[in-house]
C-alpha cells in the first residue's frame, strides 16, 4: 500500500469516526424516545380499557376534605375543603374523591401525588377494605424517599377517611399488581388503616391480610388480567 492510499484511508476513517461521534448521541435519543412512546402507549391502552372517572353532574355538591401538603409546615399534610358533586355510592364516591386528589391542589407545590398518576380501579370489600389500583406513574414518578412516599399514602388514607366512611383499610395496587414498596421505601404489602391520624400512627386495629381478603385480591388481579 503506498502513502497516498494510506493517507486516503486514514482520512476516510477519521471522517467516519467523527460522523459516528456526532450521530450516536442523536441515535441514542431516538431510541430512548421510541421506548418512552411504547411505554406510554401500553399505559394509555390500560387506561382506555377502564371506564372514565365517574363525575356525574346529577350528584349533589358537598364539601369534601382533601389532604394535600402543607406549605407552612413541610412534611405535613393539611386539609383543604373543596365543593364537589359526590355520589352516595361509596365506590363511585371514592373514585371521585381520589381523582380530585390526583388532580392536585391549586398550588402545585402542595401536591402529594405525581401529576401523571391515574386511578385505574377502585374496589371496596364488605369488610371495609378499600383497594385502590393506581397506574405505574404513582411508583415511578414520585420523588424517592421515605418522607415523600409516606406523604403520598398518608394523603390518600386521610382523604378517604374524611370522605368515605365505609373505607376502614386501604390496600394499594400498582397496575393491578400487589407490590413490595411504593418506590423503594414504603411497605405496601400490608393494608393501611384509613384514619384521620394517618399511617404514621401505630396500626393496632389493622389485621394481616386474611384469607378471604387474599381471595378477593386474586379476583381483582384476575379481573385486571382479563381486561388486559
Amino acid at each position, binding site marked *: 500500500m503506498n502513502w497516498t492510499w*494510506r493517507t486516503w*484511508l*486514514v482520512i476516510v*476513517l*477519521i471522517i*467516519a*469516526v467523527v460522523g*459516528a*461521534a456526532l*450521530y*450516536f448521541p442523536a*441515535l*441514542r435519543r431516538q*431510541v*430512548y424516545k*421510541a*421506548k418512552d412512546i411504547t411505554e406510554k402507549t401500553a399505559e394509555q391502552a390500560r387506561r382506555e380499557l377502564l371506564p372514565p372517572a365517574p363525575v356525574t353532574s346529577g350528584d349533589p355538591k358537598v364539601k369534601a376534605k382533601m389532604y394535600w401538603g402543607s406549605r407552612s409546615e*413541610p*412534611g405535613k399534610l393539611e386539609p383543604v375543603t373543596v365543593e364537589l358533586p359526590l355520589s352516595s355510592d361509596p365506590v363511585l364516591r371514592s373514585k371521585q374523591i381520589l381523582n380530585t386528589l390526583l388532580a392536585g391542589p391549586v398550588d402545585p407545590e402542595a401536591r402529594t401525588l405525581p401529576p401523571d398518576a391515574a386511578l385505574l380501579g377502585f374496589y371496596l370489600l364488605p369488610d371495609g377494605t378499600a383497594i385502590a389500583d393506581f397506574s405505574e406513574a404513582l*411508583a*415511578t414518578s414520585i*420523588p*424517592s*424517599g*421515605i*418522607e*415523600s412516599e*409516606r*406523604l403520598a399514602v398518608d394523603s390518600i388514607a386521610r382523604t378517604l377517611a374524611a370522605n368515605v366512611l365505609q373505607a376502614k383499610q386501604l390496600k394499594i395496587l400498582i397496575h393491578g399488581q400487589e*407490590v*413490595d*414498596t411504593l*418506590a*423503594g*421505601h*414504603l*411497605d405496601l*404489602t*400490608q393494608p*393501611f388503616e384509613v384514619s384521620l391520624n394517618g*399511617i*404514621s*400512627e*401505630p*396500626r*393496632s386495629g*389493622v*389485621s*394481616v391480610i386474611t384469607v378471604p381478603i387474599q381471595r378477593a385480591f386474586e379476583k381483582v388481579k384476575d379481573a385486571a388480567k382479563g381486561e388486559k
Partner: protein
Amino acid sequence: MNIVGALAVALGAGLATAAALQEKPQAPPAAQSSAPGPIAQTTAPTTTAPMTAPRMGLNVVVLDPAHGGVDLGARGTQGIRESEVVLQFSEQVKRALEAQGFQVVLTREGNDNPSFDDRSARANAQRGAVFVTLHISSMGLPGTARTYVMPDFPPSNDISGLIPWERAQAPFTTLSHKLGDLVQAELAKRFKGSPPTAEIVPVRQLRTTAAPAIAVEVSSVSVENRADLDRMIPGVAEAIAHGVAAFRPSYILPTLPSGTGQGGQP
C-alpha cells in the same frame, strides 16, 4: 498502520454499540430490588426465643447505605445522588460508632445494590446487633433529619412460635422505638427543625430485620449546594453514635435456638 488499526477498532466498537442500542434499549433504572428473597427465607421461618433470656451486650451495628448500583435513589438538581452520598455518610458514621466501641458491619461498601432481604440477612446473622439504614430524602426541610421505625405488627395467628421472615421485625418493635427515639433526640439537638422523636412508618427494609432497626433520612438532595449536605455528615454521625451508645443499657439479646440469628422478644 497503528493509527489506522486503532481507528478501525474505534469505529467497529462504535458501530457495535449503535447496533446494541437499536436492538435492545436499556431498561430504566429499577427501584431498589423488591424481588422476594430465597424461598428458604420466606418459607422457613426464624424462631422465637424462650423468655428466659440472659442479658448480653450490644456489640455490633449493621450500617446500611441505601440504594446503590443502578438504583441511584433520590437525585437532586445539582447532580447529587443519594446512593453516593449515603456511602460517604456511612464512612463517617462507621468511624463515630467505632469510637464508641462498636463493631460495624456495612451492607455495602461499593456501588452495588443488595436486595432488601440480603441487607436484612447481614443483620440477622449477627448477635448483639442493631440495624441502621441511611437515606437522603428528595424533599423536606433541608438541614433536618428524621428517624423512622416500624409500627407494631398485628398479632399473628401462628401457634408454632416461629417467626416468618416477613415478620422478622415483629418482636423488636419496642426496642426499635426506644432506639429510634434516642437517635432522633440526638439529631434534634444538632439539626434545628428536626422532630423530637422517631416517626412510625412502615419502611420495607426494616420489616425483615430481626434486630432493633431504624431508618435515618437526612433532608435533602434538593439543597442548592452539595456542601450543605456534607456539613451535616459529622453531626449525623455523632448523633447516631451517641444514640446507639445511649441505647446500650436497654438492649437485651434474646437467647435463640441453635442455627438461627437473632429473633426473640426480650
